[in-house]
């Protein structure tokens, strides 16, 4: 759909096409006829496309800056270490696409072929897609409202030729808005294994993450588990210090209260940020770091969880 007016009542509202703000909107006829409220045909198309994708994992957080993209990237790296596992990483953060930088793929371009858009391949078994690859300059801003962002996400899911994939990891921006609703709705007919939710230990973070957990319940998205990131910092000199204090018990207490699994805790290691900035895998940079060991254990738990999920064809995500 094209751009909508600022006070659009919403395409599925009873006022759709009929409200005062609808006058002059290019989609007025569509909404008034009720066609816009009908299920999007793209949902079926995406279901078909996703038949070659075995497991789909959304990486979410209510809070910004907790390490979603860092985690998504390293989940992809970790899974792809087995060259027989095909991994795809999709970045649906349209305004702040970090994945190209973190994966060391800045400046790469997306190519179109007869079968759709080709992802950018870091390895033979690791393909990546992000709006970042469609921008010509690192200073370009993507100043888009919700409907246009949704359109992009639809294209990513429908038009990218992912091929045979064992794991599709979807990295999201913070929040519970357009991007998240669209990802869940467009994948409604395909089967999402679940969400991995990232938090840091402080209450300011947990407060937003509880909302994200409620969002998952609302849209019937299963929760694979929660990862507590930046969990403790060891001063390299004196071995003391905490920075992001778990003043209300951290993720552990929250998970217990909300009855969701805690997949693990990843400590702060300054080398993680540096690896991301350089576009390299932290696992290669610091294989013995407690953070690497924590990541690996979490990845294993995610793989185990995915293998226990219902087989393809069973629709666990409500539409």
């Amino acid at each position: 759909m094209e751009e909508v007016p600022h006070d659009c009542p919403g395409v599925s509202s009873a006022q759709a096409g009929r409200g005062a703000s609808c006058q002059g909107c290019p989609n007025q006829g569509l909404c008034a006829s009720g066609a816009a409220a009908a299920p999007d045909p793209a949902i079926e198309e995406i279901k078909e496309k996703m038949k070659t994708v075995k497991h789909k994992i959304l990486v979410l957080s209510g809070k910004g800056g907790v390490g979603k993209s860092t985690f998504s990237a390293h989940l992809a790296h970790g899974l792809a270490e087995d060259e027989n596992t095909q991994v795809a990483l999709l970045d649906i953060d349209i305004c702040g696409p970090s994945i190209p930088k973190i994966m060391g793929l800045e400046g790469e371009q997306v190519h179109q072929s007869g079968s759709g858009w080709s992802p950018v391949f870091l390895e033979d078994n690791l393909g990546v897609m992000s709006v970042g690859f469609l921008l010509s300059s690192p200073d370009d801003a993507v100043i888009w409202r919700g409907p246009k962002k949704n359109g992009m996400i639809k294209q990513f899911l429908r038009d990218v030729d992912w091929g045979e994939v064992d794991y599709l990891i979807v990295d999201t921006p913070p929040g519970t808005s357009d991007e998240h609703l669209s990802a869940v709705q467009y994948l409604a007919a395909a089967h999402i294994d679940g969400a991995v939710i990232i938090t840091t230990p402080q209450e300011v973070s947990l407060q937003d993450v509880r909302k994200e957990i409620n969002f998952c319940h609302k849209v019937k998205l299963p929760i694979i588990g929660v990862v507590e990131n930046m969990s403790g910092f060891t001063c390299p000199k004196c071995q003391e210090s905490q920075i992001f204090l778990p003043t209300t018990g951290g993720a552990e207490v929250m998970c217990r209260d909300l009855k969701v699994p805690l997949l693990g805790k990843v400590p702060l290691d300054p080398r993680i940020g540096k690896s991301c900035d350089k576009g390299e895998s932290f696992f290669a940079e610091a294989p013995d770091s407690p953070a690497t060991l924590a990541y690996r254990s979490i990845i294993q738990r995610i793989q185990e969880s995915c293998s226990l999920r219902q087989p393809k064809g069973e629709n666990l995500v409500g539409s």
Partner: protein
Amino acid sequence: MEAAAEPGNLAGVRHIILVLSGKGGVGKSTISTELALALRHAGKKGKAVHQCDSGWVPVFVDQEQSISLMSVGFLLEKPDEAVVWRGPKKNALIKQFVSDVAWGQLDYLVVDTPPGTSDEHMAVVDALRPYSPLGALVVTTPQAVSVGDVRRELTFCKKVGLRVIGVVENMSGFVCPHCEECTNIFSRGGGEELARHAGVPFLGSVPLDPELTRSLEEGRDFIQGFPESPAFPALSCIAQKILNEAPVGLS
């Protein structure tokens, strides 16, 4: 919406500052809070400083009613309730926050935003345009991944005609309180370099400080409580720069 001088709108507000970032989790809300507190402490005439996110009747955070606060958080029935709204609904609420709140006479309105360059940002810039905002404080952390998003935010500001007051580099180094060793957990210097590249002022670097984190968690006034903290001089300096540009008046 027209900028008529109706009671309850922003006609009585002297200076409006937006706090933006392309990146999440860099400390926009933290900097907004600390700026509001610092401006309040510097406001020698005891003028009102209001921090805005959204609302109708501001919630006063102190006895003297020198800082009031608005947020969609006050409208939720339960604190864990998720606000699962698409763009148009968010835009409508933001417009209401700007036009339907009884702000009264304010020296400063500090507007905290979510990360990005989307609905909320366009809505708030459009709604505030008739009131000529002082400009935007753009927050980043030092790493390249953060700077990579924030440079896009600076482009946004240029495109919508929003002046950039300056860039703040947050979480810039960590000084261990036990042994004073400085570790650059999230790198160093990226914010300053970004400001230079974009030709905008660099307002300062705020180091990581667990006391700052703790006081935010507990809702305490960091500026009053921790003048010895390494973060204090940086925050005061940033507030002073704003005050130099937009002093508290005598009205």
